[in-house]
């Protein structure tokens, strides 16, 4: 089994972070109270050929990782959980955790879809609703829930909406069979 040493892992991480941050180092840090300008967003992660999931099987967490926003433009996205039907990451900016972002497969928890039936909001055309006072969620392809939860008072509902839009929602829709 190949085991990367901690130092060499850190070296790779540092090099790739520097490469990504070079493009943003002359600009002001993005105001994450509003939607970040699309032109400054880093390129999405490569998703490859997305095949629609089996409508009767809960998706593997690893299939969801590719849909997450990549690190870049002053923030770092680190995966924190990956289970069947669920993937989660945290977003850190200027050394402070600002959000926890996740995708969950509602096939594993169908009750979660109920709140979207009466949702009045939408983000990028997908039904959107609040989850408590700290979260905003959308439902993609009537299957996958994307949620952003604030971890800092500085990230408000508008900021959460911006972060939802950073996911590769087209790819997620294709994964759902749309």
């Amino acid at each position, binding site marked *: 089994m190949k085991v990367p040493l901690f130092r060499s892992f850190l070296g790779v991480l540092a090099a790739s972070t520097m490469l990504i941050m070079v493009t943003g180092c002359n600009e002001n840090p993005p105001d994450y109270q509003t939607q970040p300008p699309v032109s400054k967003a880093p390129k999405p992660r490569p998703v490859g050929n997305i095949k629609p999931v089996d409508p009767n099987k809960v998706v593997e967490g690893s299939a969801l990782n590719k849909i997450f926003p990549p690190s870049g433009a002053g923030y770092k996205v680190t995966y924190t959980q990956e289970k069947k039907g669920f993937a989660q990451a945290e977003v850190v900016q200027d050394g402070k955790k600002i959000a926890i972002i996740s995708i969950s497969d509602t096939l594993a928890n169908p009750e979660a879809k109920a709140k979207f039936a009466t949702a009045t909001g939408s983000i990028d055309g997908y039904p959107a609703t609040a989850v*408590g006072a700290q979260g905003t969620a959308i439902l993609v392809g009537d299957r996958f829930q994307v949620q952003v939860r604030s971890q800092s008072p500085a990230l408000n509902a508008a900021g959460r909406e911006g972060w939802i839009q950073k996911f590769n929602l087209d790819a997620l829709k294709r994964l759902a069979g749309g």
Partner: protein
Amino acid sequence: MATAIDQAVNALPADGFTVRALKALDYVAPGQWQNIVGWDSTVAAVTGESDPGVLSQVKQRAIELYNNPSEGYQRALWIYQTVDATDKTLGMAAMANKVGEKIPLLGFLTKITPKADKTQAFDLGVKLVGEVAAFCYTNGLPGDSIGDFVAALAAYENDSLIRMAALITFDGLVPLGPDFMRTVMDKVGSGGTGDLTQNATFQRIRDLIPGGGDNDKLGFISTSLQSVSGWAGSFIAERGITRENVIQSLRQYVEISDDKLDYLAGFLDLSTDYMAHTGTQSVARSLISRAISEI
């Protein structure tokens, strides 16, 4: 299997010697660990929500996830509870009476046998591997991916961070001195499966350590130690942790004379259950964070 998660979190003490020993490490990661106890308080703190309807849905989903054995949370909790389950000969009840007073180490010397370096080394190795396994059962990732675990170590915070701090200070630095990682790797590297199978901590959690047989498991322990040694060294150096300042901080709660320092590690081992205490908090935190994301 492990106790129900809400019961386990409700049973966590707000005070006591484990809590004080961990608070003695606060200077290592100031304010990181808040010792949130009680199921309702933990759900509210982790979600940041106060609406009773939302909290009720979260609790229901969390228990549902926990109760499904294939989700891994029960195994994780079992590892944390079991790896700490030494024969508490010093009597936790005796500790409880002393809350508010400094515990005189001198009063317990006859009950403590300082561990041989080899035993201490294997204990640290097994606890570390227990942490890797419990982490993977809780949060996912391939079960034997040390690389992913080491990457995640850099993001450790709250109860997870204080647990690792306790592991490398109480179980490493205090008994074995500043060169503890090298000592541990030497002892485990030169030890055989015989040493491993005799280790009481290993016996308790053997089945949940990755590896087909004891040789594989020993190999996994050695590899884990090597991978984490860089992190451990940086953790100590960046925070200016020394054996002396750990002992000095513990002196807030324990009367320790300089000629009895050899007994301190054994005392900590027998009188604290920091893996079980903070491990319960970490499992609950991940579980609740997932539950609110899924409702």
